[in-house]
């Protein structure tokens, strides 16, 4: 059964304090791993798609990496505006034809000034 586990559940950082969020997954035939950002009262906002182990993607202070078992979202020198819940989702071969996703429960990131 496809499964996604995110850790930690919550993370509090000081502004400028770099850290990483983890997404561990079990899926039959990974077709894509997706990272989203969700602000309070809003829908998830797409950040990255990673397709194969070894792949990396960057956007401003965020960098996503992928191995065969997990993905990391590295946050370098975060700012208070990076505070949000970060969601990870996977698409396996069984769901690939319809782009269906399995989501983790997210990591709530708070960056204090």
């Amino acid at each position: 059964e496809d499964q996604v586990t995110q850790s930690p559940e919550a993370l509090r950082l000081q502004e400028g304090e770099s850290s990483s969020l983890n997404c561990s997954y079990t899926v039959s035939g990974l077709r894509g791993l997706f990272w989203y950002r969700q602000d309070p009262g809003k829908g998830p906002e797409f950040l990255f798609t990673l397709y194969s182990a070894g792949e990396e993607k960057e956007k401003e202070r965020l960098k996503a990496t992928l191995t065969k078992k997990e993905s990391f979202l590295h946050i370098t020198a975060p700012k208070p505006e990076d505070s949000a819940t970060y969601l990870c989702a996977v698409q396996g071969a069984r769901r690939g034809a319809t782009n269906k996703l399995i989501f983790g429960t997210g990591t709530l990131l708070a960056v204090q000034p």
Partner: protein
Amino acid sequence: NAGVTQTPKFRVLKTGQSMTLLCAQDMNHEYMYWYRQDPGMGLRLIHYSVGEGTTAKGEVPDGYNVSRLKKQNFLLGLESAAPSQTSVYFCASSDGTGGNQPQHFGDGTRLSIL
């Protein structure tokens, strides 16, 4: 650029009442999805559609019905609302070409069943 628009944004119902949630997308996407998001449980797929006139069950379909009469619209219905259906409902859409396409979400409908 509106993207995915959900209406209403908030609603309070009494047990047994019915209602319809509307989702509209302006990206010409083939695929559309309805999720519910509950604390500690993540996003769970209720129903989805791979094209106009088609619908299929997701992980948690019981108590819900859907319709996709037009490509741009996807409706979620609750025939007889129950307190267990109190949740935040999100609609999403994705491009149907190829695979591995990201889903794009609306800002949700917050539904309370009393």
